[in-house]
């Protein structure tokens, strides 16, 4: 039986009572402080993270030190899907983009739970594909779309995933999120501000016109949203 309300995470709240009970005894809550590195590429991931609030950014890097964000994980999903049944060696670095809190569980525990429940495994596979969908859409987007649409898309995703319209994002971070140069981000942030879609000052972004951003964003925003809805059901 459940003694307490479930943590506010989409993955956890969608589980059947039996599946949740497999995980519940092992859940702990941790803070996700801004900028914390949860795992680096090549390290072994020890825990799965289910954000309640906040957003985790997955980034890949080149030897030269260039970074690009490949996907984000928010309160609707979890970090560590593929590591549970696959290899626990992290394929990308996970950094806290928007601070918050998360439930965590040791991967071994989650692995044992997955061994016992095919429904749980199916859910994990779906969340794995959702991340995959995000990465492949971003791959297309970064190759083909202008900085302005990419920044709008990214701000919208961050807003959706965090549920917050005031975001602590430096231009450096935004540049990394969309894989553009800092000065082009600066120009574009300026023009979004002039259009009154955002208000930007000292590393804080206040989204003031969601519809405006939606119109500026490329088709990739809606495409990823549709994939998430299809794979993970309505939020």
């Amino acid at each position, binding site marked *: 039986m459940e003694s307490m309300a479930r943590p506010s995470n989409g993955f956890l709240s969608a589980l059947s009572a039996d599946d949740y009970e497999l995980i519940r005894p092992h859940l702990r809550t941790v803070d996700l402080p801004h900028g914390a590195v949860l795992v680096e*590429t*090549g390290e072994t991931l020890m825990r799965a993270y289910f954000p309640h609030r906040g957003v985790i950014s997955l980034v890949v890097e*080149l030897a030269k030190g260039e970074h690009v964000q490949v996907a984000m994980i928010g309160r609707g999903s979890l970090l560590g899907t593929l590591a549970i049944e696959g290899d626990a*060696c992290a394929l990308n670095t996970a950094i806290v983009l928007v601070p918050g809190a998360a439930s965590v569980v040791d991967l071994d525990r989650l692995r044992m739970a997955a061994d016992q429940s095919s429904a749980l495994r199916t859910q994990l*596979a*779906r969340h*794995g594909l959702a991340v995959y969908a995000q990465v492949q859409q971003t791959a297309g987007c970064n190759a083909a779309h202008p900085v302005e649409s990419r920044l709008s898309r990214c701000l919208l995703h961050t807003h959706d995933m965090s549920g917050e319209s005031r975001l602590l994002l430096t231009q450096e971070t935004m540049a990394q999120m969309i894989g553009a140069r800092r000065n082009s981000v600066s120009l574009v942030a300026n023009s979004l501000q002039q259009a009154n879609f955002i208000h930007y000052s000292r590393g804080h972004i206040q989204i003031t016109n969601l519809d405006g951003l939606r119109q500026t964003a490329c088709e990739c925003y809606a495409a990823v949203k549709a994939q998430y809805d*299809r794979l993970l059901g309505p939020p």
Partner: protein
Amino acid sequence: MLGRDSVVGAGAALADGISPMDAVVLFPGAASVIEFGVFRAVATASARLRKLMVRHEQVMLAHVQQSLLCNTLHPVEARLARWLLRAHDLSDGQILPLTQEALAQMIGVRRNAISLVAHALQRAGIIRYSRGQIEIIDPKDVLRLLFGGEGPSPAPDGSRGVTGARCDLCVPTCTQRRCIARAGQLVSIANVSRREDDGTYPRTA
């Protein structure tokens, strides 16, 4: 892009039939197929098979995110060269039936950008290009184009194999490949890694 080193649809099968991508045959060939339902039943019965499938998913993800990085940061020439090498690997170095239109789509650029680069590569004697067919004359030349000078610097493990080198650039890094391949008992993945380490494709039955 995947070939005989992997599988299409395994992730979707594990996720109950939902797939987030379209799969299109790029180069003609033949494949083994299995019904989703049967595959799911087998996967339910075998934890080993499931783990192998998820590892294939991870390799795919590693490829996609590296393409993302490459598409974002690198010039068209490098992107085209990387893509051609991967296509060359997967198709045994045969002539690739590819229009410039398709090629532009593959690496996410305009057709005229491809035209210019393909023309330059042809003039340099690196590829032969005619009427929707591309032949890579020598993959080592493509590598030299990517890395300049004597070609690639050795991988961290000292190997100078064709792909050991590419981890400097845009194939999944050595660490990632090694991590995925570490549990060598998983045959196909180990084969992928062996091929990538010494440049030979395993001839398993």
